[in-house]
């Protein structure tokens, strides 16, 4: 029986979500997608609500996407700039949380370099908390927008063959996606250099391949991960040139994928590093569609979490 009541106040990770909840978010996002096509892109749903963006790590697209989502729903969005904040003056994270709480926001959207920070916040504050990325652990709205993009294109998630390729070890996008896609019945294959693969990668619930060619064979979807170039200095790959030569997604390497394969990338892309430009801009690429879908998915999340206010879940 399909669940129709949402009673979750926080979105901390895909790991917590039930299949029915994921479907509710994706279904709601379908209806919010239409708002972007209106001449006046605004609905009054969250009028009077205050949503706080708390980005401890630099973020342009995720924070903008949340901000646009909030504003399209008539909420007030406040960016708490951590660069110049009291955190630099030594205030503890929990004291900051308490102070923000005293300003009575309705929701906090948080990104932090350390895993578990959104959960810590959720334990300390009474408003809703949305995880916009914690360490290399989870990035649930990214996985939701990826699933949403795939579902719109393929009409389903169940039974799809999906490859996720790149720096899996350091990727919260990969972790959330594996959790979400496998919950929804897709089969996921992880691939990338062995020096960027967790020791127990199979524990994530996916298959593991060690060449791009092997990973993309017969796939419906290929998701490329961003390579953080600064990691080269930390000895986990030799050079950008070599990475491109052995592990990038190129037209040649895609040949064994299904004919109607689609390409995703969470951005920002490094053209000529993990993905060739002609692939990124090619007909299979849904990369810009992901960005547009991101706003709708985040509107859906804000809407559902707001609806659970006061229900104490």
């Amino acid at each position, binding site marked *: 029986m399909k669940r129709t009541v949402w009673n979750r106040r926080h979105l901390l990770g895909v790991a917590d979500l039930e299949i029915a909840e994921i479907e509710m978010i994706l279904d709601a996002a379908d209806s919010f997608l239409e708002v972007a096509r209106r001449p006046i892109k605004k609905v009054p749903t969250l009028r009077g609500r205050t949503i706080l963006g708390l980005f401890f790590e630099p973020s342009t697209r995720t924070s903008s996407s949340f901000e646009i989502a909030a504003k399209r729903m008539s909420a007030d969005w406040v960016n708490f700039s951590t660069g110049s904040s009291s955190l630099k003056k030594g205030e503890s994270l929990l004291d900051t949380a308490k102070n923000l709480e005293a300003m009575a926001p309705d929701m906090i959207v948080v990104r932090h370099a350390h895993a578990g920070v959104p959960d810590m916040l959720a334990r300390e504050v009474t408003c809703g908390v949305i995880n916009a990325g914690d360490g290399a652990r989870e990035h649930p709205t990214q996985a939701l927008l990826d699933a949403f993009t795939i579902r719109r294109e393929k009409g389903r998630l169940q039974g799809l063959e999906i490859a996720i390729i790149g720096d899996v070890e350091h990727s919260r996008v990969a*972790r959330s996606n594996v959790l979400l896609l496998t919950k929804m019945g897709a089969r996921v294959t992880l691939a990338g250099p062995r020096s960027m693969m967790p020791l127990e990668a199979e524990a994530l619930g996916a298959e593991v391949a060690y060449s791009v060619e092997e990973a993309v064979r017969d796939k419906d979807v290929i998701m490329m991960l961003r390579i953080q170039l600064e990691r080269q200095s930390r000895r986990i790959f030799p050079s950008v040139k070599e990475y491109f030569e052995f592990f990038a997604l190129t037209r040649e390497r895609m040949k064994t994928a299904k004919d109607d394969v689609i390409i995703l990338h969470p951005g920002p892309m490094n053209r000529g590093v993990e993905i060739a430009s002609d692939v990124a801009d090619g007909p299979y690429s849904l990369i810009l569609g992901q960005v547009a879908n991101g706003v709708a998915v985040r509107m859906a999340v804000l809407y559902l979490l707001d609806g659970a206010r006061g229900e104490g879940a």
Partner: protein
Amino acid sequence: MTLLLRGGRVVDPSQRLDAVRDILLRDGVVAEIAERIDLGDASGERGGGDRGGRRGGRGGAGRGVGAGDPGVRVLDLEGKVVAPGFLDIHVHLREPGHEHKETVETGTRAAAAGGFTAVACMANTHPVNDTAAVTEHILSQARRHGYARVYPVGAVSKGLQGEELAEIGQLHAAGVVAISDDGRPVASSELLRRALSYARHFALPLVQHAQDLDLSGEGVMHEGVFSARLGMPAIPGAAEDAMVARDLLLVELTGGRYHLQHTSTARSLELIRDAKRRGLDATCEVTPHHLLLTDQEVLRSGLSTDTKMNPPLRSARDRDALVEALADGTVDAIATDHAPHHVDEKRVPFAIAPFGIVGLETAVGLCLDRLVRPGTIDLARLVDLLSCGPARVMALPGGTLVPGSPADVTVLDLEQEWTIDPLQFQSKSRNTPFAGWKGRGAPVLTIVGGRVVEVPAPSR
């Protein structure tokens, strides 16, 4: 002061004894141990009459205490277990320098409350215990405020910097019982070699926190299934194994004495086992938390920083190997690595929290309930691991109830039920992953130098 311990089940592996005995403690040492020791005054909880003489003990095995004893206190310990005092050879008392976490006073109170009559405290204080002056300060604090015996461990290197040898001879003269840069492994092979050689002059064991810092890097938990799922920077088991392997090669080269702290992996146990077989002077300890918890606890606890310690909680396979090594004799001691941290220091994201948990007040109960009760090891083996074994490792007085040895005794009640409540700790700190755990079997009396230690009610 004379104390007669009446009718307890005496478990003392040092003399292969597990039988009901009376024990007489006088002038700070064990005076006598016999099936029955009778006081001159038959009436007497507080004997010392002038009648003298002796009464025949049951079976004629006992003797009277004799006349002229000025006040003998008798403790009826029927149904209790009487063991040589427990020694925890891996404790951080945090004094001097980190008194907001713990002091010699609160740390030894925690020790006594937890059934330990003595602790060896590590050198990573501020200033570091790398000079005789610091050692003397710790010993003086222990004399003035101590509830248990305190054996300071000196630094291997000045300032724990791993560059120059500390003044090991002077530290020894001041009273250190071992040398260790605990918290910071001795990374330099050359320095370790020299330290192992030099410490032989003083018969001091070199006590190592073995971890290849290059491999452990920024890691905060064991590298395995759960670090993969959490995306957490991780410490592979090989970080410990690699350093233990190197260390043992240098022990072989130098003939030095080596003790491996908080052994956490199956592989490093194999290395120690092999070293012992080949006659090297190598010993090892394990902690209760590595015996009872695995890395799964990090996830299960919702990233509680009380599951963060170094070495990290390891895989179930490693944990099983540690438990097996307890039983087969590879492990010489159970030690807690009691590492108090202030609540403000631990209430931060997992990745940046300090490593370590407190252990003094939970160790004995946990071992009784989770290791002895299910039959993993027997009671005599546990006493060996908590008393005789650690005394041997650091050549400490105690670890036995043979007459003439220190009158340090731990009394256990195997039936006493407990629930771990950090608010009741004597320690200043509360960082334990065992809060709320329940079990049966607990230390009920701690006797140091022939006196029952009276611990004040916990301060809140």
